[in-house]
């Protein structure tokens, strides 16, 4: 099964990289961008076809390693 974990910075956490990208977009003439926050996407292949088990494994992966929950939130999706 294909799955995806998306890690994003929590609201209020300063994101200097996002700010730099925001500035670069502005200087490229891309209009209408109010703000940019940078995050990470992990595409993960899961063994077997048990969706509940897959979600539990992905959640464990995110809690243990993929996200630092002091500053980041994560979202887990089993894409099937």
């Amino acid at each position, binding site marked *: 099964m294909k799955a995806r974990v998306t890690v994003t910075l929590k609201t209020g956490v*300063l994101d*200097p990289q996002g700010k730099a990208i925001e500035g670069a977009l502005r200087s490229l003439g891309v209009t209408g961008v109010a703000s940019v926050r940078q995050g990470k996407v992990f595409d993960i292949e899961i063994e077997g076809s048990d969706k509940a088990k897959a979600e539990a494994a992905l959640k464990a992966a995110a809690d*243990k*390693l*993929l996200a630092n929950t*002091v*500053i980041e939130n994560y979202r887990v999706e089993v894409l099937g």
Partner: protein
Amino acid sequence: MKSAVLVFPGINRERDMARTLKIISGQEPAMVWHTETELPKGTDLAVIPGGFSYGDYLRCGAIAARSPVMDAVRSFAAKGGLVLAVCNGFQIACEAGLLPGVLMRNARLKFICRDVYLRVERSDTPFTRGYNAGQVIRVPSAHGEGNYIADVETIARLEGEGRVLFRYSAPDGKLNADFNFNGATNAIAGIVNDKGNVLGMMPHPENHVEAAIGCTDGRGLFAGLADHLARAA
């Protein structure tokens, strides 16, 4: 002073650290590979050195923080053992939950490699007894992710409990945004855990201990630790 220097793939400051420990204490430190599950018997000081463990992949220090040897460091620290974590070591200690907060990308996004000034906030700790409170020391800094942040309650607790040991300052000790080069909250350069036995700091005191280098301001930290351990023995 029996010290143990942890070694992770991608670390590159472990030999500077070992050299300094040898110069100050006269004793060769044990080099401990990341797959070890115990620190050598009788270790007084565990050191997590700087570098780029695992190429800074995922987040700085994230992968090293989950290695087997860190369980040994956690139980060593829980029993009151002294832990010194420098630069990437500070990032690893935060990721491992030994210290609160996170080291984020420097505010101006640049990797900054130069000498910086640190104001020593207090002298009554094993790590800073070699200095006077308010003293300013010059030490090298070399990092891209040293911008210390934590939630408002954590910062308030660190400040309230006097757990900030080093702050980026001007050479005269005044706090000034120009000298807080990485944008750290409250110009925080180094903090201790709630028990005061784990220090994490971004700059490299181990690189300023020999007169031939031109500055020995880092000596006080290691000499202070050796003195503390000699008295405790």
